[in-house]
């Protein structure tokens, strides 16, 4: 078994349980994202995998070696696990130059790795700073140095703790691209922690959604986005419109359509969640689904609804439109995200249909 295995890991600080019964498997060359809000235990899991926290319950395996075992108190120290860990604050050593920072984890005589370092420095564009000290670098440059430092010893497993959260938004896309490229080259099993869903979707082969110490859903990005297991996962990807109703005849009825509710008894109260991207102008272009969308689509009928625009703002590539169903001014407006520039005046009546794949029904318990 190669790669990183976390089996049934639980961790508590004092009386409060931070991680409960989490199992994660990351294959070599795969990039798995742990996605979840702050405080859900993602960073703790990472630290347990790295050996910076002593495993309390469960087992951690890297490659073929069990590096940590809860009950039996086995604990391979971090320096012997062959993991690379990239910290949120980068943790560059202020007393070493950039190059010395990166070379920290390699043997002094390892010429081949030194060459790799020199090439990598050029590639990520910090070559001219190789003898400078970290404190003069910008955030993005420090991030790249930290990444190279973690990669230099060629670890089996790479662990990234919110690697892009300290960067300005404009650079993020470019740096993400670069990071992904570097990671894929190394064939390390990579586990990344983030709270940004778009980042997770972009980087990950698989996403593990975590909440309050548990794994809530484990799947490909498309899976998690189009087939969330519950309202929490749905909400992770952005604000959703919400309607409450009761199951009747195996369906939940809303002004925007009837949606199937398999496995739920009649009379059960449910919430129907519409993503802002679910709304389609009736005479707009038809979208195309990726082939591996998977999952079943609940039986439903969507109705063309006439909605009153309350407000419309351009966002560049899309437009943010708010409207109400019945023209009732006091009602909480629904939010739609329409591709392109679409800015009807307030009060306009527009016809919309809803894409059933972007609508999710969950029981309210």
């Amino acid at each position, binding site marked *: 078994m190669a790669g990183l295995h976390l089996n049934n890991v639980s961790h508590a600080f004092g009386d409060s349980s931070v991680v409960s019964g989490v199992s994660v498997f990351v294959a070599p060359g795969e990039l798995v994202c742990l996605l979840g809000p702050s405080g859900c235990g993602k960073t703790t899991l990472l630290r347990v995998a790295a050996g910076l926290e002593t495993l309390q319950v469960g087992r951690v395996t890297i490659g073929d070696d069990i590096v940590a075992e809860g009950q039996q*108190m086995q604990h391979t120290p971090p320096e012997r696990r062959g993991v690379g860990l990239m910290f949120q604050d980068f943790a560059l050593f202020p007393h070493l130059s950039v190059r010395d920072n990166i070379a920290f984890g390699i043997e002094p005589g390892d010429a081949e790795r030194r060459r790799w370092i020199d090439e990598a420095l050029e590639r990520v564009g910090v070559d001219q700073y190789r003898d400078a000290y970290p404190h003069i670098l910008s955030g993005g440059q420090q991030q790249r140095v930290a990444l190279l430092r973690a990669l230099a010893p060629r670890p*089996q497993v790479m662990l990234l703790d919110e690697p892009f959260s300290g960067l300005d938004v404009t650079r993020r896309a470019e740096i993400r691209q670069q990071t992904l490229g570097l990671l894929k080259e190394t064939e390390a099993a990579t586990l990344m922690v983030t709270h940004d869903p778009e980042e997770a979707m972009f980087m990950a082969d698989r996403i593990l959604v975590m909440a309050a110490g548990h794994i809530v859903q484990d799947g490909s990005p498309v899976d998690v986005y189009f087939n969330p297991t519950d309202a929490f996962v749905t909400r992770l990807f952005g604000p959703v419109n919400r309607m409450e109703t009761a199951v009747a005849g195996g369906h939940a009825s809303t002004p925007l359509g009837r949606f199937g509710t398999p496995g739920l008894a009649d009379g059960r109260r449910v919430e129907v969640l519409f993503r802002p991207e679910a709304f389609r102008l009736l005479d707009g272009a038809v979208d195309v689904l990726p082939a591996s969308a998977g999952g079943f689509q609940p039986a439903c009928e969507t109705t063309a609804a006439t909605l009153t625009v309350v407000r419309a703002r351009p966002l560049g590539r899309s437009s943010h439109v708010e409207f109400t169903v019945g023209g009732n001014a006091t009602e909480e407006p629904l939010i739609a995200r329409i591709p392109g520039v679409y800015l009807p005046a307030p009060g306009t009546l527009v016809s919309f249909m809803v894409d059933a794949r972007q609508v999710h029904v969950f029981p309210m318990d």
Partner: protein
Amino acid sequence: MSVLAGRPPGRPPGRFWRPAAFPLTLGRLALDPWVLGALAVAGFVAAPLLAVIWQALATSDDIWSHLAATVLPVYIRETLLLMTGVGVGTFIVGTGCAWLVTMCRFPGQRVLTWALLLPFAVPAYLLAFVATDQLEYAGTVQTGLRALFGWQRPGDYWFPEIRSLGGAVWVMTLALYPYVYLLARAAFLEQSVCVLEVSRTLGKTAWGSFFGVALPLARPAIVIGISLVLMETLNDFGTVDFFAVETFTVGIYDVWLNQSSIAGAAQLSLVLMVFVLALITAERLARRGRRFHHTSSRYQNLPSYRLTGLKAVLAFAACVLPVVIGFVIPALVLAGYAIRFHAETLSPRYLEFAANSLGLSAFAAIAAAVIGLVLAYAQRLSQHPAVNGVVRFAGIGYAVPASVLAVGVILPLSQLDEAMDGATMTLLGIPAPLLVSGTLAAVVYGYLVRFLALSHGAVEAGLTKVTPNMDGAARTLGAGPGGALKRVHFPLIRGSLMTAALLVFVDCMKELPLTLVLRPFDFDTLATFVYQYASDELFEEASLAALTIVAAGILPVILLSMTIVASRRGGTAP
């Protein structure tokens, strides 16, 4: 060194298996060499404290009822008053001057930066002597005033009584403020400039930034400084005795010498220890949960508020006053006496005493820095309350009156000697020479026990510069705890280690009571030589030796100041 050498890339070298016989928390501790080493070292340092406690418990003398009925309230009151006065005084002088000198620019600021540390080189008892000498009835000041105003008798005018609580407070403030100044200045230098700039854009003036931002952020360092000051105040005997202030420590010595009850003295010392422990714990509890790391990793030159006119004059005066009163005047007075009495005071063995002082102090300083580092690092590694507890306890030595501590040192060493003697008798049939008690080893041991708090505190303060994530980075990159210490922590805290060593060096040079009791025969340091004469208030004869103590402290003090500045990344404004 990376452990990844010589194997296919990316493969960890195999298991490191620990037996599971112990419960989780203890088991983790039981086999960690760092933790075991630290516990052993801390135990070694704590042994005399335990001896004091043991002595305190092994008695049936009832001294408490007598004390409570008579002088205990006085002792407690005087001690609390003294501590409050000195605490407040050193806080104001130390922190205020540190801020002025770090953040503002005014004429003389550069020199004052290190000059403000000079009073650290002057032992408190010398300062006390000079103060009384100059300020009492026949001293220069009052004689001059009488000549000026034509007064004849004491009843003609009012002059504050020097030998009083007030006198003791300000003499000890002058002698001890350098601790607070040192640590406050280091903390102010460490502060990320972004935080201070934000404060300014939010509309705060220099003073506003000081009280609102800089001071709270520097709080841990300042508190450590003040707690050192308070501990020194608590265990001081020479100065308070000189000023006829009856503190708790005076009571301890009284019980010891007049009631012939070392056990009683140990009991009272125990009370002091508990009190200090409580203070420290309270402060830590109050501090829990807050973070004092830098939040910004970018450093620039510090901004400075340029002072002009009256403000500049006031700033200069405020900073130069402690230096003049606490160092320049005593040095001049001593130098004057040394010249006047040069024939008597230049003992033929003077160089020998000086060499003794320097050698002992240097050795103890280095040992203290190393031990402080080992303990602080082991604490950092284990993060276990038991380790923290033992180390904290070992640092209490600073609060115990030194002579009582000396007795505490004697006990375990004598036991050791006796054991070795027994061993050689049975094995070789000859008595063993005294190997530890009554040797220089005993003196160094005493210094270590007494000054551990100092070196440990300085190293601890320095380690806050290394974020926990840097530890983690070093570990995951293949450096074990020892490797990380060598390659990451040590380079980063070199300045703090230097500070620790320098602080202990100067304190050892000045140290008196421990040396007196523990030293070998025919061995004198400069301080014990001065004491011969000082104990009869014949300072004049000992003035050259006293001056040497002060002079020996000047260079380390300057080095100290330079170290603090150098350890700040990014430099300071010129």
